[in-house]
């Protein structure tokens, strides 16, 4: 029977797969590498799901061992399976397995096939560790390893300069957030003396909170710093720029890491440290604002993009913004719920898009069109997922998005509510712009010869589609928000009664968005250009992604490099130059030094030289070179010495 301690095995299976694929993949496993990884995932599923079922039944597990001694205390590593981690755990194992099965088909024939699965297994290991981690350090370690995997997988086709650059950018950008996260952890540790989730929970909820009254400043700082981690990892404004570029990676990676799991980990982080945010309510508006801005901005950018994966990437950013907004309004249940449903339909969207790319070998939607007939499975599943994302009832996306809108509406954030509603409208519009341009109409590019993907790829699509359709049920009013109440076991947060007004608004926004997209893109494609011309500044802003990359490159990256170059110059010319006494310094220091050298230092040196030579010209007379002369001097000196010593005179 599966006991709780077996959960150690859950991350270990992928780790073993990683080691196996890394060491023997290229030489022995070759095409079987995929099956090693998939088997590991399935095994992890087999262990994790029974435990999750127990947790859904109300159980809660934790265990730990001492990892490191800090100061007077200790850091204990272990697992913590509570409702939050159980829901994420089940999602990650299922989605992860399905995506790996898909990848086995998608990546077939790649020269670094085994390497790909090694990385994916390492990622699975890190993600699973993260979900069951019981403290911030372990969480952070897994978090960073995920970042590494993301880096490696984005740059998987590293011969392509753009891919290598994208990986670099992704790692560095998230690292900015991670440094904030690290400082947040340090602050937290100094403030509370522990990094254990359960201990933090018990410290910050209940009676002891009064004792910590004086620490709220530090606590707020730690909460905001930890939120930096989310901003980086979940691609929130202003660190969202890496995610669209991350689409350089293979599509299954985009689905797994950059849609379903890793980017969601940032949201999970807020959920994990929810009590900290709750303890200092002043931090919540910051979270809401960031989330809301991100949601709207990303959706706005997605309106005009033409790369199929980039549209999805911006859509991901937008949806993550949704979740963050929800959490910022204390909607833990709503945010997490959207996290789970989004993972399914967004993974499905990416996989289907991958299938399209696999079949057509192009990524630009302007070159596609009329693919519905040629790849029906792909098209159907894609449309299902799009409907879910747009928020059409009764698909899962509707229920979870509705929860978030409800939270915004009921908690009185009306500005947030209307922004989110507008975003929902835009979401429906750009998704169906994508659908219509890809699957309907006429084929626009005669060079594209599309074909349906193999069953190995379409089967996971359908499996995910089932999830995308049904997963809304547990959180819907039909089950009386079972999921939210299940999560609320852990943390108390407000509950709201379902509102017909909100639902109506949501449905209207979705339907009108779809309809508008249909009018513009299904009937007359030229109308789009006309609209773009009418709203030229807005169009430019959206098309150029608010110029974020340009701004960052000009005002952050270039100054950084310049500072490096200046420091180096400083080092070589001034510090080193001062050391060497060489006049390679920058101009004025060089000039000053030069003057000093010539007039004072050199003068002194020259004087010393002259003086020495003067002495020398006298003393050198003694150096005749005749041995006997020396002897005579020695002898006479000896005599003088004797006379002196014997006091004879």
């Amino acid at each position, binding site marked *: 029977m599966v006991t709780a301690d077996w959960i150690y095995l859950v991350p270990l299976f992928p780790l073993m797969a990683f080691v196996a694929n*890394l060491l023997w993949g*290229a030489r022995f496993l070759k095409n079987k590498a995929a099956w090693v990884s998939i088997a590991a995932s399935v095994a992890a599923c087999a262990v994790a799901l029974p435990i999750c079922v127990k947790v859904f039944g109300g159980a809660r597990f934790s265990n730990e061992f*001492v*990892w*490191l*001694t*800090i*100061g*007077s205390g200790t850091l204990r590593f272990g697992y913590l399976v509570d409702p939050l981690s159980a829901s994420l755990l089940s999602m990650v194992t299922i989605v992860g397995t399905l995506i790996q099965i898909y990848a086995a088909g998608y990546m077939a024939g790649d020269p670094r096939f085994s390497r790909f699965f090694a990385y994916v297994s390492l990622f699975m290991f890190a993600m699973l560790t993260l979900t069951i981690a019981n403290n911030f*350090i372990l969480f*952070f*370690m*897994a*978090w*960073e*390893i995920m970042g*590494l995997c993301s*880096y*490696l997988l984005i*740059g998987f086709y*590293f*011969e392509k*300069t753009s891919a*290598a*650059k994208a*990986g*670099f950018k992704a*790692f*560095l950008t998230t*690292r*900015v957030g991670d*440094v904030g996260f*690290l*400082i947040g952890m*340090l*602050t937290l*540790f*100094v403030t509370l003396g522990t990094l254990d989730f359960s201990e933090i929970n018990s410290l910050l909820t209940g009676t002891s909170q009064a004792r910590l009254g004086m620490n709220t400043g530090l606590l707020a700082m730690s909460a905001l710093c930890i939120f930096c981690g989310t901003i980086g990892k979940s691609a929130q404004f202003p660190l969202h720029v890496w995610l669209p570029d991350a689409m350089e990676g293979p599509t299954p990676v985009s689905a797994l890491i950059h849609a379903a799991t890793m980017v969601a980990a940032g949201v999970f982080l807020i959920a994990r440290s929810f009590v900290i945010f709750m303890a200092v309510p002043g931090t919540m508006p910051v979270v809401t604002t960031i989330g809301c801005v991100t949601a709207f901005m990303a959706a706005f950018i997605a309106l005009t993009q033409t790369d199929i994966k980039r549209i999805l990437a911006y859509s991901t950013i937008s949806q993550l913004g949704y979740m963050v907004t929800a959490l910022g309004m204390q909607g833990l249940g709503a945010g997490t719920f959207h996290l789970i449903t989004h993972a399914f339909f967004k993974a499905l969207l990416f996989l289907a898009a991958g299938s399209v790319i696999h079949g057509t070998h192009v990524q630009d939607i302007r070159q596609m069109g009329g693919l519905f007939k040629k790849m029906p499975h792909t098209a159907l599943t894609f449309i299902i997922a799009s409907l879910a994302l747009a928020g059409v009832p009764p698909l899962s996306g509707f229920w979870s998005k509705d929860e978030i809108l409800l939270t915004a509406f009921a908690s009185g954030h009306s500005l947030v509510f209307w922004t989110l509603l507008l975003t929902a409208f835009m979401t429906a519009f750009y998704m169906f712009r994508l659908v219509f341009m890809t699957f309907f109409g006429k084929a626009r590019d005669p060079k594209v010869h599309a074909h349906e993907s193999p069953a190995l790829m379409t089967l996971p699509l359908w499996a995910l589609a089932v999830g995308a359709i049904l997963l809304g049920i547990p959180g819907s009013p039909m089950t009386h928000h079972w999921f939210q109440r299940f999560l609320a076991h852990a943390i108390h947060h407000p509950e709201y009664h379902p509102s017909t007004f909100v639902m109506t608004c949501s449905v209207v926004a979705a339907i009108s968005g779809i309809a508008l997209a249909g009018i513009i893109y299904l009937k007359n494609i030229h109308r789009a250009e006309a609209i773009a011309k009418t709203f030229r500044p807005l169009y430019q802003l959206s098309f150029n992604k608010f110029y974020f990359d340009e701004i960052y490159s000009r005002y952050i990256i270039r100054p*950084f*490099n310049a*500072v*490096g*170059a200046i*420091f*180096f110059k400083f*080092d070589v010319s001034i*510090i*080193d130059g001062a*050391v*060497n006494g060489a006049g390679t310094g920058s101009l004025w220091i060089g000039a000053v030094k030069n003057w000093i050298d010539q007039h004072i230092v050199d003068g002194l040196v020259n004087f010393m030289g002259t003086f020495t030579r003067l002495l020398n010209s006298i003393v050198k007379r003694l150096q005749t070179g005749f041995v006997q002369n020396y002897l005579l001097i020695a002898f006479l000196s000896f005599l003088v010495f004797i006379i002196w010593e014997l006091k004879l005179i």
Partner: protein
Amino acid sequence: MSSHLLSWIVFTPLLGAFILLCVPKRAAHLIRWIALGTTALTAVLVCLAFPVFRASEPGFQLVERVMWIPQFGVQYLLGVDGISFPMIVLTALISLMACLGSLTHIRVKGGREKEYYFLFLLLETGMMGTFLALDLFLFYIFWEVVLVPMYFLIGIWGGPRKEYAAIKFFLYTLAGSLFMLLGILAVYFAAPTHTFDMTVLANVKFGLLFQKIVFLAFFLGFAIKVPIFPFHTWLPDAHVEAPTPISVILAGVLLKMGTYGFLRFSYPLFPEAAHWFQPAMGILAVIGIIYGGFIALAQTDFKKMVAYSSVSHMGFVLLGLAALNADGFRGALLQMFNHGTITGGLFLLVGVLYDRAHTRELNAFGGLGATMPVYAGILTFFSLASLGLPGLSGFVSEFLTLLGSYQYSKLITGLAAIGILLAAAYLLYMIHRVLLGNLNPKWAKLPDITALELSTLVPLMIFILGIGLYPKIILNYMIPTLDALLIAIKI
């Protein structure tokens, strides 16, 4: 034998060096084997110390005490504790790896192997002695013994500007150690019983002004070795010009001698001065971290980049020392060990590439990940360890250091965190330029890493991974001593 284990550890390399002198020059094979055997034997001796060394006890163990120059109270006094024990393990490990690395490298460099290995073994004796000596006079002697072979090793087997680099290194360090000598003499004459004995001197209370002055004298000696900004400019030159194995030793062990000096001598002898200098050291540490990081970012020479990253990483050690608390000290000592393994490995990797391509220009490479996959993997591994990826050893020490310094000053910690960011930037940028992107056709035929080169790297990787996953294995050796030190210097 175990009764004089420390003496054996110190003088086995010297013995090997003298055996080498008796071997004819032409027997190159024999010379190599003797050198390798001697370093391996030293490593074995260090391993023998593991069962004898009681990790849970603070204070010096395996002490050997013989009166050497009775007129001046100079003793031959060796001892090991939780601070020096990791250091001698590191020295043995790095020396062995560097010796393995020398096998091919020096042969390529055009011979004179007998002299090379003689100096190499002499260097090892000096390093071991520095870490084990408890008598200030003896310490100074070993400190200088390290200097001389290093000078020749850089000056003879170095790169194009080797003479310049060697002289610079020598003068710099000599200047520092002169100040240290003055400090040692000052302590000697100020102590009520004229003695160089650390164990006695640690109990002596000096006046605050005296402490400040002598602390500063010691500081100069140690700071140049670490090196601390602005005394660091010898480092890039020495590193770039030195042959690979010597760079490895330079980064792996020699830099640690400076920070070790702080822990061993400066802090126990002058606790009040240590507190007085705390802000200055913290600020210097942060300057070093950021400054080194920025300059590393601007480098186009592979080795120079690693050298400047050393400046940045040793800044973390200093930061931990400046924190003057348990976490900071643990982080610093652990970082000393980790930096030794990680940067040592990076230098070995630079050497591997240089031996093949005969250039270190980063921009000249590109796309090597396709032709040298194993090398690419290992280089990535070491870079990640260096940038502090959790799960590898660099993270643990940086985390502890920051945790310690955070309790001292938030501002300084915040600034130091920029250093982490910079580390990620310059290391990834390096990987980007060397391994990724388009393959330069010039390097299409480069062979992948050989088994011998692999054997120098794999042990380091085991240490990095082991410490990263379960740091208690090494921290257990350090903690009792560091805690005792912390109590002793509390004011």
